[in-house]
């Protein structure tokens, strides 16, 4: 039973990744713009162009190119970046930590903020406070992440410049990283200046990504909490002398969080998608920023590599959500 589930899951994963590969591969080649022409200085000869085209294999038919690329991928070789002249896998993996740290921080903020507002709204249900919170989260939700980015840049970068608006860490800090997980490594090695500076640089982009998701969590979780708070098991807890806040936190929250979890999973993948523009806005050296450069330069192997990594990431996240859903729900755990 379990084995079957796992097998099906692996198979769908493989099919999804293959589908993504085919689509991206075709799209980037059909789209206008010639990567070779962009690499060469003006006045390059026909021969130069032909040579380079052959070097990167762009002279072959599309299916043929795909087969070559796929056989490389199977061996862990995602090709070489045209603009950066380095293996795509190396480039992409070096940028992944920055994006992961940013996304996870954004997720933390969204869950903490959204959770707090939801609990507060449920605690003060049917009052002016609830209406106020509903209106605010509605307003927050209507502004997309990149606009929040612009607002933050204007507020805390220009009007009241307290936060750095670009980069990932203060360049004056001396620290030789062995990984690209700045926050994690700083924490593990006890360098809190590194952690502080990195978090400071992440704060605005992370907030931009987090706010819409926080508003979504606030709305959905509050709704679910209110439903749970009408059920008899919460009534019983009240009769047993628990305060309303205790009833919410001890009894209702876990039940209300389950349906919210599915949304958070899906929305987290959207949030990661949002890093592409937000990283650009804050000149944050992550995958998204690299993706935009790759697209501008028509760096086909790099685009493919980044898209495949994003796709794999989304699949892993969905898997993690499904798994935790099963683990948290005794009805599924035993069934």
């Amino acid at each position: 039973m379990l084995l079957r589930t796992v097998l099906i899951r692996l198979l769908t994963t493989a099919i999804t990744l293959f589908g993504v590969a085919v689509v991206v591969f075709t799209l980037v080649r059909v789209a206008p713009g010639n990567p070779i022409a962009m690499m060469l200085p003006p006045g390059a000869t026909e021969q130069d162009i032909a040579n380079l085209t052959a070097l990167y294999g762009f002279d072959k038919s599309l299916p043929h190119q795909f087969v070559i690329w796929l056989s490389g991928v199977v061996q862990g070789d995602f090709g070489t970046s045209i603009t950066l002249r380095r293996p795509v896998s190396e480039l992409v993996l070096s940028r992944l930590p920055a994006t992961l740290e940013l996304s996870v921080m954004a997720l933390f903020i969204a869950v903490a903020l959204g959770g707090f507002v939801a609990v507060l709204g449920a605690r003060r249900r049917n009052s002016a406070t609830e209406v106020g919170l509903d209106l605010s989260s509605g307003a927050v939700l209507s502004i997309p992440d990149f606009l929040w980015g612009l607002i933050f840049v204007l507020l805390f970068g220009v009007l009241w410049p307290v936060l750095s608006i670009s980069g990932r860490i203060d360049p004056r800090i001396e620290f030789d990283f062995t990984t690209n997980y700045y926050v994690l490594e700083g924490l593990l090695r006890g360098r809190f200046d590194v952690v502080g500076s990195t978090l400071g640089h992440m704060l605005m982009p992370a907030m931009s990504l987090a706010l819409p998701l926080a508003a979504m969590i606030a709305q959905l979780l509050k709704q679910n909490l209110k439903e749970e708070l009408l059920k008899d098991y919460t009534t019983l807890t009240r009769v047993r002398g628990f305060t309303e806040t205790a009833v919410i936190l001890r009894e209702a929250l876990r039940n209300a969080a389950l349906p919210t979890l599915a949304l958070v999973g899906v929305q987290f993948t959207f949030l990661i998608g949002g890093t592409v523009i937000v990283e650009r806005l804050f000149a944050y050296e992550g995958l998204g920023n690299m993706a935009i450069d790759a697209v501008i330069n028509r760096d086909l192997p790099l685009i493919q590599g980044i898209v495949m990594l994003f796709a794999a990431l989304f699949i892993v996240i969905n898997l993690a959500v499904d798994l935790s859903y099963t683990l948290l729900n005794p009805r599924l755990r035993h069934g």
Partner: protein
Amino acid sequence: MSQQTQHRHALEIINLSIALPNGVRLLRDVSLKLEPGEVRALVGESGAGKSMIGKTVLGILPDTLKITQGEIILEGQHLNMMTPWTRRKTVAEITALIPQDPLTALNPLRKIGPQIVDPLIRIRGWEKDRARARALELLERVHIRAPERVMQSYPHELSGGMRQRILIAAAFAPSPRLIVADEPTTALDVTVQKEILKLIRELQKETGTAVLFVTHDMGVVAKISQQVTVLFAGKVMEDAPTREVFTNPAHPYTRALIAATPSSADLDRPFSPVPTELIAELHAQVARDDALWQGKKR
């Protein structure tokens, strides 16, 4: 003052009125008394305000509803004059609730054991071992086989009847002096209903707990209660000993309710629902009273 020391009721409700924010009254001047060890049935059609009385007694009325007048007195203590904190403590100390729907009355994400044991530790301040022993004792008393295993189960693994027995065990476990049972058998199969009713009656007799038993079924009233309060549109129609109500009902609505209960009186008599004309007339009466009351207020 001397009244209180002379004789302390388990519960006393005096002239209770509850209204919506717009002033519409849901309870109208309700009074009732419950002596220690007594079972009082609270009977009436759906929407009569039975659960609302139960909630008021337990101090869990929704914030949107306001007590416009009246007293709720638990063992001589005035509930509606207390701070929320004291009220919670007092209610938890004296009362317990057997809810209507066993399917939603247990937290689906927590095991049965802690759901019975934790309140005992919290309300009574018992040691964990003592609370556990008490929970096991009560589970056995309500005929749960393999109580140890059941304590380790999640609610979804148990049948509705079993869950209701667990909830009865949980209600009696802290030895409350007043139990509010809000239609505890309505959500169950007919066969299970009988069994649950019997269990509540037995445990009530053994422990001497006072019970406010909410129901809309006169058959159940006859089986379980010594006293009856008949409620219509938030108003008390009749308040009398159960025996008297069945032999000599004073109010036409009570008579109609008894007639509408197939199992109550002689089985040969055909089933006759409460006549709509009577209901309409009673509603008109309530409306007239309300108008009068509004006039008095002005």
